[in-house]
């Protein structure tokens, strides 16, 4: 408990953009075969530092097999909610779930050069208290820390639907399931919300047997992955509307609401349209009658390819799909970054008009067929994947691994973890910084990045930007 609100909490997204820039980044270190324990790499992002752009500290866990993926903060700008009046938590702990082990680590990052495990929550406790497994996305919200899960109960996570559970933001005790009425929701992936408007949006990937041992081609071709997004009355904990994006829109993943809580719209990325292999972005919004709507506003075409250049899974299609696997929205709600993991491209769309996004910039790196090298001449394994934008919107960081078993299917010859950074131009457009290239220690891949003091996919703001 502090006497003053944590200086990294901001009332509006605009104030967050004006705050001091990030000095450190925290990035997942993933041992793809579980031969080593996973870890968190601390990256020096202070541009005046001698060790800028290097991993300056690593915290390696004790047990292998966690499969770190996404993670988040114990507290963020949502603490300034006018409903709380008690903004005296510290942004100090990273909540890091293992999606294979169902274990959760609470990591104290107060001293970034000496981060340490503060608490470990064992899988049995999560199973017993929530009935869920495979914890994934973290957001700090009105009653505590919200954790989405990918699996229900039982050995393979299919005994009951997955959902969200709540943890106490000070003691990290697991409180229990979030949902009171989940409606049609039976799969889960991402979620985010608008706190003053009191709604939440959640998305769907697939059930554990559909991803843990690799993508299941038959399930994909028969459209059995998730293709709906769900709208919730946040405080009533009730699913108020389920929007089916169409069964060909397989794997509706990242949910990115506008950061300004006055706006009632956001975006959702769809990995692949099975009818034409396109990647897609849907814009969702609430209409004047209070009904939620969604419309496909961006499509990204597959690129024709020689079957010899394609992995087994794609040979028959003679094309490489874009595979939209992550999206991220800048704090001014202006630029949406779209990771096209299959074709090796990162796109930047101007979404000032959310219904009519305009492609403003493109960076090519990696990719199944093109395998574009970094401007420094080095290899980039796989394609652009987890993307994180600096608060001021000037730097865009990303890593390359999607998910251990899926990396191996789509990129059977690649191995390694990299983190790169692109600088955004004054009037849009962005280019890779030739001097920023982090090669992860041997045996480790990389995934989500969190920036010290918050970033564009953690903080929820409770007041409009004026």
């Amino acid at each position: 408990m502090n006497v003053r609100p944590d200086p990294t909490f901001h009332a509006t997204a605009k104030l967050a953009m004006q705050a001091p820039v990030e000095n450190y980044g925290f990035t997942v270190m993933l041992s793809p075969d579980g031969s080593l324990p996973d870890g968190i790499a601390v990256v020096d992002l202070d541009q005046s530092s001698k060790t800028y752009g290097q991993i300056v500290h690593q915290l390696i866990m004790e047990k292998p097999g966690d499969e770190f993926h996404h993670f988040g903060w114990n507290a963020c700008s949502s603490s300034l909610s006018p409903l709380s009046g008690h903004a005296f938590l510290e942004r100090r702990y990273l909540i890091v779930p293992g999606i294979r082990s169902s274990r959760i680590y609470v990591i104290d990052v107060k001293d970034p050069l000496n981060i340490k495990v503060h608490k470990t929550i064992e899988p049995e406790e999560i199973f017993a208290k929530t009935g869920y497994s495979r914890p994934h996305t973290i957001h700090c919200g009105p009653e505590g820390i919200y954790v989405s899960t990918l699996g229900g109960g039982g050995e393979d996570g299919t005994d009951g639907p997955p959902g969200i559970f709540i943890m106490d933001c000070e003691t990290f005790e697991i409180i229990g399931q979030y949902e009171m009425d989940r409606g049609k929701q039976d799969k889960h992936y991402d979620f985010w919300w608008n706190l003053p408007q009191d709604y939440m949006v959640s998305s769907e990937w697939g059930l554990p047997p559909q991803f843990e041992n690799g993508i299941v081609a038959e399930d994909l071709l028969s459209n059995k992955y998730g293709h709906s997004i769900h709208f919730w009355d946040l405080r009533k904990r009730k699913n108020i509307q389920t929007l089916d994006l169409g069964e060909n829109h397989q794997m509706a993943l990242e949910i990115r609401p506008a950061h300004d809580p006055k706006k009632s719209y956001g975006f959702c990325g769809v990995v692949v349209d099975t009818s034409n292999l396109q990647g897609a972005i849907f814009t969702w919004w609430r209409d004047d009658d209070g009904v939620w709507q969604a419309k496909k506003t961006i499509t990204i075409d597959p690129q024709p390819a020689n079957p010899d250049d394609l992995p087994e899974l794609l040979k028959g299609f003679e094309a490489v799909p874009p595979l939209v696997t992550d999206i991220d929205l800048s704090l001014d709600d202006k630029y949406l970054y779209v990771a096209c993991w299959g074709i090796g491209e990162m796109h930047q769309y101007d979404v000032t008009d959310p219904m009519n996004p305009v492609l403003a910039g493109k960076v090519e790196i990696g990719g199944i067929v093109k395998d574009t090298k970094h401007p420094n001449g080095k290899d980039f394994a796989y394609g652009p994947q987890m993307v994180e934008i600096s608060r001021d919107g000037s730097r865009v960081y990303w890593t390359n691994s999607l998910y251990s078993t899926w990396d191996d299917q789509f990129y059977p010859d690649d191995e390694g973890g990299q983190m790169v950074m692109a600088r955004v131009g004054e009037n849009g457009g962005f280019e890779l910084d030739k001097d920023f290239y982090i090669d992860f220690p041997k045996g480790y891949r990389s995934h989500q990045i969190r920036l010290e003091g918050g970033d564009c996919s953690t903080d929820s703001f409770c007041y409009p930007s004026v």
Partner: protein
Amino acid sequence: MEVSTETALWWAVIISGIYHGINPGMGWPLAVSAGLMNDKRTSLVAALGLLALGHFIAMMTILLPFSLMSALFIWEKELRIAAGVIVVLMGIYLLINRRHPRFLARVHPAKLALWSFLAAMAHGAGLMLVPIYLGICGIDANDTGHQAVQTLMAGRLANAVIVALVHTAAMTVAGGVIATVIYFWLGLKFLSKTWFNLDIVWALSLVFVGALGIYGAYAGH
């Protein structure tokens, strides 16, 4: 002596109102938020009104039982001591239990009067007024001597309403000034700058007011 004590007690009603008003935990940030979300200054004023209503009801909910008891019982002193002890205990409880009531976050952001009522109840805001209120009743009792129970009760009720009204008005003005200044001039950057963690001060205030009430009961004013 009596006059200055009475003046002091009424000032205490006003000062406790200002104190509650500036505490973000009693809701002024909600007024700023309402004004900004709806883009209307009338929303800010309406929000302050709803917050005041909730706070007033919370004050009355606490003061009413004490008001009835003080009129019915002849053990004026014992009641004042008991009330003081309850207030001290609430302060000690808040000192020990530093967790914040989670259910407040479950109230819909638009239900401001309900939120304000619950926030005031959960923090013991009404209890803070009880020793002051009973002190004022005590002075009246000295002035008026023995009245019929009905007359006495009407007087005590009127007192409770006036105390709650004055207190709530002071709270609304204090919170309203902060909300207005931030909304029109300073901007949201100052929102977090004006927030201080008042938890311990608040709990100690309860202990202090409760102790003062007990002292007043013994001292006979």
